[in-house]
């Protein structure tokens, strides 16, 4: 189990930032991701694995006014 934005999400072996975002239906290109407080740049979404127990923050980038 991992935490995504404070809510539990079932973890699976081989889960990456990219696969987690896809599963959550987050709009891929405009999101800010942190794992255990560490910022993950977009070019590393495919190669960054999420581990069981990780605390993930995935915040949509908003700029409208």
């Amino acid at each position, binding site marked *: 189990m991992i935490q995504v934005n404070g809510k539990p999400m079932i973890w699976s072996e081989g889960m990456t930032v990219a696969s987690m975002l896809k599963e959550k239906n987050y709009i891929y290109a405009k999101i800010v991701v942190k794992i255990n407080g560490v910022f993950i740049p977009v070019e590393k979404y495919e190669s960054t694995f999420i581990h069981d127990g990780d605390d993930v*923050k995935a915040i949509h980038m908003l700029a409208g006014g």
Partner: protein
Amino acid sequence: MEKRYQRNMKLMTQDEITALKKKRVCVVGCGGLGGYIVEMLSRLGVGTITAIDGDVFDETNLNRQLLSEEALIGSSKAEAAKSRIQKVNSEVEVVAKAVFLRDDNAVALIAGHDVVVDALDNISTRRILEKACSVCGIPLIHGAIAGWYGQVTTIMPGSGVFSKLYPETAEKGIETELGNPAFTPALVASIQVSETLKLLIEKGEPLVGRLLTLNLLDHEYQIFEF
């Protein structure tokens, strides 16, 4: 006790209401967020409000921007803010600046204010504004919206929050895909105004070092610490 501010009592003391009349707040952007913000600040009784926006109303603004009216299409948003404030509270000194905030005018525009409110619609101008607020030592109340989503944080001078919130080359967020309805700016603007008031009368716990995110679709309201 003026009747005008009678219902502000309990929330504020008479001394705080009096102190508020000497405060100066600068609202940068008079669109979706800014329209509601100037409305609420003037009803609270903030002494001086500066409304900055170089844009004019177009038809696409009518779905959400409080200050927009069919008859005002093509008119200055900053001037509309001034006109509205004067109708709501003639005690407020209102300064309309019908210009866009840029690197070369930002410090001059915001200098001398107690609080600056970010009601902008793009990231590059937000970065300019944050830098100018740091130079002037003025707190900045950030708000942004997209579709069902909103966010608010209170940025103290020198804390460099936007570099943590937005990737370096970003200019727009998901609002380009999700649009902007009427209810999201109204809610986010309300929170920005409450943050502004807290700083002005030194009450409560502002969102410093914390980002409040609002998801109205699923009713998820969270606070992220930087």
